[in-house]
């Protein structure tokens, strides 16, 4: 869809990503198809548990194939995103994934402090005092509003236990 402007940086092709996405949805459809048949997709005095998802998956697979064909017919030139843009995206995505992976074992507060610090120092080039103030201030704000006012407990880890929160 998007036309790469002249002299633009290289990047993965839109066509390849379209095909990849179509294959992904096709694969998902096949998994659902398999799962529906496994619990029974027929009629047993009434529709069985897999009846509805079975037909959903059939339509899903059919339309994925259509998308696959139209993806194959797409022009080869347009770029999905320039490598520079993807690098930008990864700069957010990777810290975010690490953040999410830390939450189950460390709770939400400590990883949040880290995440904000990393963003402000590494991407935003801020000075440490401001970064630390924001990084501690935001979780503190949520602690007070959610846990104290709304009495909604958030996940905590060993560090909060040490502080006796």
């Amino acid at each position, binding site marked *: 869809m998007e036309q790469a402007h002249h002299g633009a940086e290289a990047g993965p092709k839109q066509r390849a990503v379209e095909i990849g996405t179509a294959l992904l949805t096709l694969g998902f459809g096949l998994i659902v198809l398999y799962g529906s048949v496994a619990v029974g997709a027929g009629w047993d005095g009434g*529709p069985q*548990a897999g009846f509805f998802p079975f037909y959903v998956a059939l339509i*899903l697979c059919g339309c994925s194939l259509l998308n696959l064909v139209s993806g194959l017919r797409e022009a080869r030139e347009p770029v999905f995103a320039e490598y520079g843009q993807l690098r930008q995206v990864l700069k957010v995505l990777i810290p*975010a994934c690490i953040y999410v992976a830390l*939450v189950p074992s460390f709770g939400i507060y400590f990883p949040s402090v880290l995440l904000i610090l990393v963003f402000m120092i590494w991407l935003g080039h801020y000075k440490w005092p401001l970064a630390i103030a*924001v990084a501690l201030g935001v979780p503190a704000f949520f602690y007070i509003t959610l846990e104290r006012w709304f009495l909604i407990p*958030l*996940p905590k880890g060993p560090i909060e236990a040490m502080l006796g929160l």
Partner: protein
Amino acid sequence: MDMILDNFNHLYHGFGIASDPFNILLMAIGILLGVIIGVLPGLGGANGVAILLPLTFSMSPTSAIILLSCIYWGALFGGAITSVLFNIPGEPWSVATTFDGHPMARSGRAGEALTAAFTSSFVGAFFAIVMITLIAPLVAQFALQFGPAEKFAVYFLAFASFVGMSKEPPAKTIVSMMIGFALACVGLDMVTGQLRLTFGFTELLNGFDFLIAVIGLFGIGEILLTMEEGLEFRGKAAKIDPKVVWKTWKTLPKFWVTSLRSCVIGCWMGITPAGATPASFMSYGIAKRMSKNGKNFGNGEIEGVVAPETAAHAAGTAAMLPMLALGVPGSPTAAVLLGGLLIWGLQPGPMLFVEQAEFVWGLIASMYLGNIVGLILVLTTVPLFAAILRIPFSIIAPVILVICAIGAYTVNNNVFDVLMMMVFGVLGYLLKKTNYPLAPLVLAIVLGPSAEEAFRQALLYSGGAVSVFWSNGLVSSIMGLGVIAGIWPLIALLFAKLRGTSAQPA
């Protein structure tokens, strides 16, 4: 006639509930939160409401829906601020507002553009609320006679019009929808008590929560998209003083034709789940063709702000009608609100008007008051929100990530959901970049269980014969409308061919 009088009586009681000081306070909080949500990238109406939904579990349903629906109105208002001042649409439906709103701001008429945008939003919303007041009870009463087959037919119509109205390729819209339906099936099957599609993962026992999907798809996905642009805010400052407001208000009445047309387009597009975004584009396009100053559209024509804003707000508000009366939300945000109703133990649909009259009319009355409160608040607080936008993205982005994570966790107090949110976020980025619409996916997750239930009950009743969906006049006409809506692009193409012209949509 009796019924209309009855409704006014109900509405009067509703105003009594909505004008309770606590509820007015909630309205103001909701609108302000909503504007912030609408202004910030990565937070929008749908996921903003999804994140805040768990906070309302301890409130009464009426107060809860007032707070959440006001967040929705606020988000609708907020989208206009970023469009006009920064040329960055905060919400998809305010893209069309940038066409003339930002040129106006660049030529120093930001205050005028914002006043026009807010006032038009208010007019659009007000028109839609009056329509809801008059029509929703009738629709609900009519829908009381719906059996499972008719219910399924309504769902079919809703989803088919997505396929027909969407500007994305139909196959992609259907794929997106079916992914939603499939995800909604995961977990315990309520009818047979069997586990399905869990493949032995205990984390999947409870299925996929649509709130997690909304927070991931719209929140995380949007942040990733924003990062790609390498965001740099270069905004115009804005101050609205009463003189500018007054001056702009004096010019607005002469656009009443555009305004009325946009209201009608918006209401129509909002009731069918095509939503606010196409409504705003369509309204802008038609205004451009019909207006005397059509050629000057795009260079800062005030009418070019009035048209899309009126339609977007009318559509966003009208989306509440099918949600309340039929249980079929007209927009992703309305879908999240519908999910909220289910969580609070209310069954959306025609019975709501009978069993929960207080709730329904309290909500409708709060729409009137909320939009008035909203208009006053946004006109007076614009500089504040413009200042929020100047906070650099390297601070905003991690804070929004943290908010999304907290929101995802609080839905079920489950850390696994936070991981799922991330998966949905990456999926959202990928789908958005490859032109798969996200709204049908969300609506399908929300409506999947009800649609499946209606489908199975109808088939059970007919002994498995699919002909049950064509068995009487009512169900056949709804299904017929659905088929027409689904293949509408083909029909339009055929008409164009017959006329021998290649009419280009604006």
